């Protein structure tokens, strides 16, 4: 069953890559971090988080290994690979360009109304 995400297509992958880029982290951590950092604006349905993680891992952008957590229980930690880094840079740049462009257009239309 596919949960619907409020994020635009591809945005979830970008956010995951960013968070993982800050250091090895497990799935639950990513979910929490997403919520905190975005001040609860970004609500990631957890049902789509894990499929996204597995997809990124399969495509070689993320690597995973099992490490002990602070509670002593083992968890699956994700790291960014070199390929993932390059992917993130490319995606982030394209995202920037897009948002800037969209912003420009929006300002333009506001200016025109004045």
């Amino acid at each position: 069953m596919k949960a619907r995400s409020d994020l635009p297509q591809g945005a979830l992958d970008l956010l995951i890559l960013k968070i993982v880029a800050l250091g090895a982290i497990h799935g639950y951590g990513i979910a929490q971090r997403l919520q905190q950092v975005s001040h609860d604006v970004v609500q990631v349905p957890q049902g789509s988080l894990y499929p996204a993680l597995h997809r990124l891992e399969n495509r070689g952008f993320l690597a995973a290994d099992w490490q002990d957590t602070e509670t002593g229980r083992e968890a699956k930690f994700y790291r960014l690979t070199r390929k993932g880094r390059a992917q993130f840079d490319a995606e982030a740049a394209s995202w920037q360009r897009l948002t800037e462009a969209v912003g420009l257009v929006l300002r333009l239309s506001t200016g025109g109304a004045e």
Partner: protein
Amino acid sequence: MRWLQRLLNRNRLEEQLDEELRFHIDRHVAELIAGGVPPTEARRRARLAIGGPEQVKESCRDARGTLWLENLWHDFRYGLRTLGQRRIFTSAAVLTLALGIGASTAIFSAVNRILIESLPYPDSRRIVAIWDARADGKRNFGTFAAFRGIQDRNQTLEAIAVTRPWQPTLTGNGEAERLEGQSVSADYLRVLGVAPVLGRDFTSDDDRLNGPRVAILSTSVWRQRFAGDPAVIGRQILLDNASYTVIGVMPPTFENVVAREAEVWRPLQYDPAIRPNSREWGHHLRTLARLRPGQTLARTGEDLEGIRRALSQTYSSGLPPRFQVLRLQDDLTSAIKPSLIAVLGAVLLVLAIACVNVTNLMLARGSQRKGEFAMRAALGAGRMRLIRQVLAENLLVALLGGAVGIASALAGVRILSVVAPRVLLLGGAVQVDSTALVFAIGATGIAGLLFGFVPAWHISGGDLLASIHQRSRSAIGSHQRTRRVLVVAEVAMALVLLVSAGLLLRSLQRLFAIDPGFDSSHLLTMQVQLSGRRFNQPELTNQFFTQVAEAVRHVPGVKAAGLTSQLPLSGDVDEYGVQLEPVPGRTTKGGYSSYRYAIMPGYLETLGITLRRGRLLDARDTASAPPSALVSESLARSAFGGQDPVGQRIRVGPASFTVVGVVGDVKQTSLAASQAEAVYVPSEQWLAFADHTMSLVVRAHGDAAKLAAPVKRAVSSVDANQPIVRVATMDSLLAQTASERRFALILFEAFAVAALMLAAIGVYGVLAGNVAERTREIGIRAALGATRADILAVVIRQGVTLAGIGAAIGVGGAAAVSRLLGGLLFGISPLDPITFAVVIALLVTVTAVASWIPAWRAVRVDPSITLRAE
């Protein structure tokens, strides 16, 4: 390969996935509890937040990229198990499908070879046939004069050749044997693009007037008569008592599509100096040519037209109004194309009906499995996953059906090769080749997807949750609707086939009701051919044939015997122009194309051809007597109008005769033929007994076939060196003239019966399912006082309604399709109301009978039990 690793590490990956999600939920729960949420509520919220652990797992597996393969494997294993559990269902579906695929593959193999595949020659698209077009739209054989003109002047042809049949008798090396052969101009084999495997091809040096007697043999003659000895090259053989030098042997694979039976070839050796009114102007040659690379039919046509105009400057007559150029492939297949396409269409209908029927079976089973699928959906299977599962199961049925189908096609083509008339298959054997296999596999795949998707869609649709609790009314309703639509389609297609079969049956009845003009029963026929130079004396020829007739008349069981140059319904066609001799006061109109029979005394009496006026030909009409002839009623009517032909003078080709009698019309080429202008002349009076090939007709007291051996012995007793060929009873010749129609009828009948049965099964299936689902309703009706007759009527009416709607649609389809049968029909309209009425009645009756069983089951519903059951 990481992909493969993932597949192999499946179990470990599953454990890790489990652990990862459990970790997530546990942490979430722990955090919620720390935040003051009670443990049970915390656990519920955590599971809700992640959105159902099983569904998430399935999505993760999907992301892994190997899921489809694992699932495929699972689906097939599961499918095999479920199919194994339901043997009756499985075998019904597989056999139905096998019938459709087997029959269509077998027919496709036959049709493909003739209509689609190219001829077995290199660059065969460049080989064309050239005919002389006639003013009346028909076409004529080519002339040597035109051939020479084209050969010398054309710009567009690589090679051109002419050929005529030649039937030499091979002697001096075992039993005398008449061979089929061809006299060919030098480039014949080069036009086809084949060369002898042993020895050499003909050259222009061989093909000249009074050139060397040389011959090329087929592999089979070479093997049978010369033990496959390579030293045969250069050897002398006796053909028609003349010595020929063997110069070549054709490859065993050589298929001679123009004359498939030909076993020996010699150069034509006509006189290149074209004289007026010589045989070089006779229309008796088949002309073949090979286009130069890059040339088109249109450009060649223009080229030939230019040549024709140029030639007409020199020659005043003999050239056609134009030449007709067409690809050899089209030339060979144009006559049989409609029959083959009709048969192919019919078998594809059977395939479609089979698919529809299997789809119906699948749907019926699907509704029984509603609960199972609802349960699987609840356990985390996605909609696509369920569709894939059903598809896999149904593809499995398709694969089994396809395998059995191909196996039966292999057997089917053997039967086809035997029962199909030679004209229809162009004389070759049918084989399931790679193209046909591709067709079969393609048909299997398409069928599988077709009847996979419909049930898959139905099973995965509808309110699955509701199905867990009870059978969903709405879902069942849509099931039933689809199945009804399918049954209607089935009935409609079956009706099209039944009407076609009915029309063919009535055509054949009409055809055999036609009087051939003679009594065909108890008649034995055979051809006796004279060869050898001594028979250049007409007295010896006459003596031989007279003795043959006398010897045969003495065979016990023989009632009468006679000889003719041309035998009705045997494939012989010998036509001459008949003209009235000019007399004062009457202008001569053009000639009447008539069949010419050179006969010996006793022939007309043996066949039972009726005398209408005057007298028959008899022993009086010797070589020295005044030339006398008989005309057929048709010729008398068209040539003499109301006048009495007896006593009138006519010209038949080069000779003049006095008409002494009128006889009844005889069917010469086939029962369906209408042309019956004919002239009978005494053999002795025809160009000094020029016919050296005569057909013997023998009327027997009893079984004609049993006389074959003693009659042959009697002929051989006169001269053992003269071969006897074409031994057949007249009844079998008669049947052969209708062989194409009869074959089409047999196939259509078989297909129609299969279609009718499948349609009946379809109706039965829908009604049985319907009755099972409506048990409760029927119980209530019975409880409320409905009689058995009421309930019977309800169910049967449903079946007959379905059949009626199907029949109505089918009538429209049949009316559109039956026109395509056109050429196969005889003496009957494609919209023959009797055929349509009988077929509709048959179809409705059969469906009513098929409805009876479920109706009877409905009647036996015990209200007290059904009402308590739910």
